[in-house]
């Protein structure tokens, strides 16, 4: 694997090109287990060579969706197309997808070598070719000297690599990764995330990853689908998901955010004054196109790092500003999170980078402060 300092955000956006054909298409997929609906009328396109993430809390249907693509579950309704071909009725052992399991699922009674060779043997490839391919895979994951070991003789990180090598050995059209890094500790997980993206770019394969870890999804993927209760809430690039969540759910799920409920006072388009909100007395102005009309209940969402904090009142205290006192401070190393209790009782979270050393920090508990933000700092959420 090539040494890398981080994910190379490549120029790759087939989803914006109306002429490009999706590689995988989930078409009106519904999956029910008894009375429980795991996935509901879901449609999703994934493009060739894309690194796509399904993100959501446990039970949101992301794993079920992946298992339907692998062939372990059949959709109750709808169909799954791979390169335009309907996969219905094709058993898992005949699908050109391979999966890296959350538990790795390494065969404990086989050596590393045998594990990697297992899939190739099923294709009845000549022995010499299998050996060559196994060697290539071992080299790829840097485990050459561990070929003869059993999985129980490997560390967690090594097992993860074997699992990866095994699922890549057959050169699948799509590699499915089910929480692939969940069992690793934080440091190893971060390293591996970068390796995964490199590997995907090098091999030019389509990767579909399932994860509940938003950081992981943001780091590795080209696009993320945020799921909740069997429905896709938003499909977008990591930056879009973070900066422009389309709903309270997505905003709240990704990163830290203040959500302030309110109603629209006026809405005249981004060019001419934007949206004016009244949030129980707090006036908020936003430069944004918004489909809602006057009187609609909406939410205003703003990330803590976009909230400014000061002892002095801002120039304009009528809009996008409120007074309060410091209620709690969380020191997080690179920055501090201030919880400001506004005079009306609401709590606003404001993050401040710790540019100065801790001892010099001027604000402390009980200090009277002002929080304020610019008109383009946050956004109005109608869902």
């Amino acid at each position: 694997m090539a040494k890398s300092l981080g994910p190379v955000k490549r120029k790759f956006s087939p989803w914006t090109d109306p002429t490009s054909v999706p590689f995988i298409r989930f078409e009106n997929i519904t999956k029910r287990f008894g009375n429980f609906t795991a996935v509901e009328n879901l449609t999703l396109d994934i493009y060739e060579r894309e690194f796509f993430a399904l993100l959501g809390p446990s039970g949101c249907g992301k794993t079920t969706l992946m298992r339907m693509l692998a062939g372990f579950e059949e959709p109750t309704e709808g169909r799954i197309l791979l390169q335009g071909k309907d996969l219905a009725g094709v058993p898992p052992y005949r699908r050109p997808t391979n999966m890296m399991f959350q538990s790795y699922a390494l065969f404990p009674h086989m050596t590393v070598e045998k594990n990697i060779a297992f899939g190739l043997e099923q294709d009845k490839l000549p022995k010499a070719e299998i050996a060559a391919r196994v060697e290539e895979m071992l080299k790829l994951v840097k485990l050459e000297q561990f070929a003869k070991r059993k999985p129980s003789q490997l560390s967690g990180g090594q097992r993860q690599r074997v699992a990866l090598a095994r699922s890549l050995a057959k050169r699948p059209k799509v590699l499915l990764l089910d929480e692939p890094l969940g069992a690793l500790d934080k440091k190893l997980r971060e390293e591996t995330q970068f390796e995964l993206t490199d590997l995907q770019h090098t091999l030019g394969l389509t990767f579909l990853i399932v994860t509940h870890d938003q950081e992981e999804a943001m780091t590795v993927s080209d696009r993320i689908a945020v799921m909740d209760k069997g429905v896709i809430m938003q499909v977008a690039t990591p930056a879009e998901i973070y900066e422009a969540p389309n709903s309270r759910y997505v905003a709240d799920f990704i990163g830290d955010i203040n959500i302030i409920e309110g109603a629209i006072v006026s809405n005249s388009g981004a060019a001419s004054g934007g949206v004016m909100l009244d949030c129980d007395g707090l006036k908020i102005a936003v430069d944004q196109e918004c489909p809602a009309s006057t009187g609609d209940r909406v939410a205003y969402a703003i990330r803590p790092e976009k909230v400014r904090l000061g002892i002095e009142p801002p120039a304009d205290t009528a809009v996008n500003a409120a007074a309060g006192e410091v209620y709690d401070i969380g020191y997080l190393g690179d920055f501090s999170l201030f919880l400001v209790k506004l005079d009306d009782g609401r709590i606003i979270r404001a993050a401040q980078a710790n540019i100065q050393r801790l001892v010099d920090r001027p604000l402390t508990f009980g200090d009277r402060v002002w929080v304020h933000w610019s008109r383009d700092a946050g956004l109005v959420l109608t869902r």
Partner: protein
Amino acid sequence: MAIDTLSPPLPPEPKVELADDAGRTNPARWLIVAIPYLWLLLFFAAPFLIIAKISLSDTAIAMPPYTPTFQGFGNLGTFFSQLDFENYAYLASDSIYIKSYLNSLRIAAISTVLLLLIGYPMALAMARAKTSLRPILVMMVILPFWTSFLIRVYAWIGILKPEGLLTVLFQSIGLMGEGEQVQIFRTDYAVFIGIVYSYLPFMVLPLYAALEKMDHTLLEAASDLGCPPWKAFWRITFPLSLPGVIAGSLICFIPITGEFVIPDLLGGADTLMIGKTLWTEFFNSRDWPLASAIAVILLAVLVLPIVYFQNQQQKAG
């Protein structure tokens, strides 16, 4: 009549359920279910229907050489007309049978209590032993179970009989005079000793399983909260081991009720147990219908504990 119960299980409906293979229509999967299912239907379930039927037959027509009275579905009418409750009436009329049932239940109940009293301290001691020692102790409890039941009962004859080793022992330590002998053999006491001895592993193992998985910090927490050890045992340890107590008691009580070998070899002529009575009716009197009726009643007596045991097992499985 066995035939109609033998229709093969219906093919699994294509229901979808998490982690279940029933929905996949693969002939191999099918055979996995069908083979053991059919075997048990034929050799375990069907015989119960036959036993029920024969218990309703007359001795004359059911006596060996036994000709099956069921000759196909066409003769169903005559077949049923031959059935009556004569054997059950006979069972009710002769007090020896009722006494046998009651005595079996009494012996099984007393034995189960004795087994609990002896087995619980053993299981507790095993669960409290050092972790490295525990597998060896479990092994030592299981080992006698692997040796033949018959052999273990037989071993006691040599010890308990009047001129046996117990008499020799008591005489040598002066507990008994020259002419005296231990009068236990062929009494209920010998039966209790034999039963407790044979069933002890069955009682200890479920108890140990329940006690062993108990979280030891619970007792520390109780102690920390001011609960003295003996009280902690009754308030914490014992309630948590109840599933083991129930499992062990059922595993012992049910088969002891129908026990044959122990009362036959160690018990006296007056030790009435229903297993022995059934055996005698069958092998000595050769009254098959009566033996069947005894079995049906025994089954009826035990059906509740058996169903309860199955429920417990299914919950555990």
